[in-house]
């Protein structure tokens, strides 16, 4: 049984068809990359899976049960959470407090939540900055914080929305390493990313979205050679 | 319920509606551009009413004529409020800006109380009691002038926003704050102009109603809340919507007064308010754009 499965997923905003008849299935332990030109509907897919938008039609199942119509917090408690393309830390809270918010899903007691949050803050490499307010962090650290907050909810599946955009090559390498370590903890990942080398290196499988439809799917090497994919990117002037 | 009473209520409502519409247009303009709910709006109106009163009482200036003075005066006051009080706190939390205007409202309202006590003052002019009949309904001339003048002013404002450069900049700022800054609009200046214009609108409304309305510090509060209702009804930032909303609220209030005992008419207005906020927060006439 697949961990996450969607079929016939469609989202219409007024006259705009953002996602059209999209099928995707992920198994536990997979890392799947979701790529496509700007405006292809990738983030909308994340919104639909995580419960921020209700699909116009189609099914989404997580661990065998339908999550269509569930709110994001309920989906999070089931074991699926996401990060945002534009990071959204709780700016007024400290690093550790940000992560504690997530940790409280698994630990009801504040001391235990702080302990869990502390472990995860160390895990993502923010240990030295655990008591700083989130608003004072660099972009790279904010991206880590966002991942840490998600990890603290102990997800089985994590959706990462451009966790590397805006970072320099060194920082990108660090995030790649972090994603590998997250995967090694048994978390399955669905990743939107524009940094091509990174997503090629990380993904077991790539899915290409274009104008809201699935254009191609397969091993990274195959997809990169797919003529339609190349055209889609070139057509966008990329 | 006789037909005559109903007709009277409709006429009264329409005559009140224009004034509400102008008060609310000013508030809506300020909200549209600054994204602030201006709690001091009613207080500015009250100050304008006192200005009109004193011009009349001390210098014998006709209330309608005094508009020539009050409009620019209160435009200036609005600009000063924006530049001195609001603009420096631009980056503060939304509710902080709301509290700034609340502080101003408390200040102005009680300044009036300190200076002129809570007595009701009235401006009695020769035409204060002039009236004529439409069928069975009494039309008081000062109310007709106020409502008509208010609508004219609101239409004038609308034309200003459509046709002049400053007006276009105001609308650009209301619709696309970042974009407006990018195309080189002096954003701070336009914001000051918005507060100034909004204040001038409410000042004119205040001047127009003094021939038939009492002047007292607490006028501020009742008109303030009414203006909130109208603005929400018309769609925050939608100027023409505010004018239309003014007539709806005016009608609701006068019909409520005709059919309900005591001051329960206000309940009708508040209920409309809450229902619109809940179910159509963008207002009855669509989004915060003046289409």
């Amino acid at each position, binding site marked *: 049984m697949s961990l996450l499965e969607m079929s016939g997923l469609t989202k219409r905003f007024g006259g705009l068809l953002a996602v059209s008849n999209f099928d995707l299935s992920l198994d536990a332990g997979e890392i799947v990359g979701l790529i496509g030109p700007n405006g292809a509907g990738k983030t909308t897919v994340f919104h639909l899976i995580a419960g921020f938008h209700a699909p116009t039609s189609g099914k989404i199942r997580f661990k065998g049960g339908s999550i269509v119509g569930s709110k994001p917090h309920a989906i999070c408690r089931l074991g699926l959470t*996401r990060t945002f393309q534009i990071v959204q830390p709780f700016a*007024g809270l400290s690093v550790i407090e940000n992560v504690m918010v997530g940790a409280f899903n698994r630990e009801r007691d504040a001391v235990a939540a702080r302990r869990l949050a502390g472990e995860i803050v160390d895990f993502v490499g923010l240990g030295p900055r655990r008591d700083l307010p989130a608003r004072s962090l660099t972009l790279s650290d904010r991206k880590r914080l966002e991942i840490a907050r998600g990890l*603290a909810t102990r997800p089985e599946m994590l959706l990462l929305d451009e966790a590397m955009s805006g970072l320099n090559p060194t920082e990108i390498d660090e995030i790649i390493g972090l994603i590998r370590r997250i995967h090694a903890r048994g978390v399955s990942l669905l990743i939107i990313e524009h940094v091509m080398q990174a997503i090629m290196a990380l993904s077991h499988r790539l899915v290409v979205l274009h104008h809201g439809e699935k254009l191609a799917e397969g091993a990274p090497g195959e997809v990169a050679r797919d003529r339609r994919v190349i055209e889609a990117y070139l057509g966008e002037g990329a | 319920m006789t037909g005559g009473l109903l007709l009277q209520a409709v006429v009264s409502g329409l005559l009140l509606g224009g004034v509400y519409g102008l008060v609310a247009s000013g508030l809506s303009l300020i909200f549209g551009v600054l994204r602030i709910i201006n709690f001091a709006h009613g207080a500015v109106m009250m100050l304008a009413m006192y200005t009109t009163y004193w011009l009349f009482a001390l210098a014998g200036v006709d209330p309608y004529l005094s508009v020539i003075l009050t409009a620019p005066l209160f435009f200036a006051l609005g600009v000063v409020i924006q530049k001195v009080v609001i603009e420096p706190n631009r980056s503060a939390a939304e509710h902080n800006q709301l509290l700034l205007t609340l502080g101003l409202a*408390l200040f102005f309202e009680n*300044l*009036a109380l300190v200076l002129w006590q809570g007595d009701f003052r009235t401006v009695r002019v020769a035409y204060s009691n002039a009236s004529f009949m439409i069928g069975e309904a009494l039309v008081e001339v000062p109310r007709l002038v106020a409502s008509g003048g208010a609508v004219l002013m609101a239409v004038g404002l609308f034309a200003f926003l459509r046709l002049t450069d400053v007006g276009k900049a105001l609308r650009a700022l209301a619709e696309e704050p970042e974009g407006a800054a990018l195309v080189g609009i002096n954003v701070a200046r336009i914001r000051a102009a918005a507060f100034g214009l909004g204040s001038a609108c409410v000042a004119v409304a205040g001047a127009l109603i003094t021939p038939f309305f009492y002047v007292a510090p607490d006028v501020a509060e009742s008109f303030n809340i009414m203006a909130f209702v109208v603005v929400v009804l018309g769609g925050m930032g939608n100027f023409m919507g505010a004018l239309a909303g003014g007539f709806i609220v005016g009608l609701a209030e006068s019909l409520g007064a005709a059919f309900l005992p005591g001051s329960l008419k206000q309940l009708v207005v508040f209920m409309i308010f809450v229902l619109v906020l809940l179910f159509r927060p963008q207002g009855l006439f669509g989004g915060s754009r003046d289409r």
Partner: protein
Amino acid sequence: MIARAAGALAVAALVALPPLLPKYHLEVLISVLFWAYLGIAWNLLGGYAGQFSFGHAAFFGIGAYTSTLLLLQVGLTPWVGMVLGGALAAAFGLFEGYLSFRYGLKGPYFSLVTLAFAEMLRVVGVNTKAVGSSLGLVVPSTRAAPEMFMFSGKLPYYYIILAMGALALALTWKIGRSRLGFSLAAVRENEDAAETAGVDALATKLRAMALSSFLTALGGTFYAQYFAYIDPTISFGPGVSIGALLPAIVGGAGTVLGPVLGSFVLTPLSELTRYVLRGRAGADIMLYGAILVLVISFLPQGIVGLVRERRARAGRR
């Protein structure tokens, strides 16, 4: 260490000194604690959850009217009446909150809805003979009857509001350190992010609403018993709504001690101006308005925020 000693000293003074105070000073102190208490109650919703209510008078009035009507009509002691009033206010708060939050009202829109609900109750109160209409209700206070929340002299009321404030403060402190406190902060800072971190934003806001309105209503009963008179404008008017939020904002919204500090600054200040400017109706509130503008301009994070900033700066040196 110094802060802790100062705190202990302040608590000792608040407990031990009042019997020695002259009547007027005691009244001012009661007033300080009363507004601090309302500020603490408002702070749970407005500060911690970041939902800026502009209509807490609704809950205050429900509390005042429930206990007073029960006392006058069926002779029920306000000690019980205040709990019933609190429950009714919490129910009303949940209704108001559910409607608002369900339809996604935020920021100024939420403020306006709360204001409208309070105003509606005021209008209903003014127009309903059964609750005394605009004439209000007089609470009998001729005899001392502790079991009926009636005392001779001011001192017992002082200790009651002190205890209420202390309990509300302790509750706030405890919530701030609990899961609920973190959820409240998360919702205040960023609702979408809170949801992805597993926080049920709607339920969290409703909890804050219920707690805040319950506590506010208890303040209403206290007011009714202490002043022995309520009317719709006092109980449901904007005065109480503003009075509840100002100490919290001035002291520091979303901090435990903020409302207390705010009230200790604001209330004596307004008493002082009222005294100095006596005979000039409105002068005190005028000054209040001016101070509000200045405080928001120069202390956007309140007194607590200023202290924190100073400390952070000192720490960096």
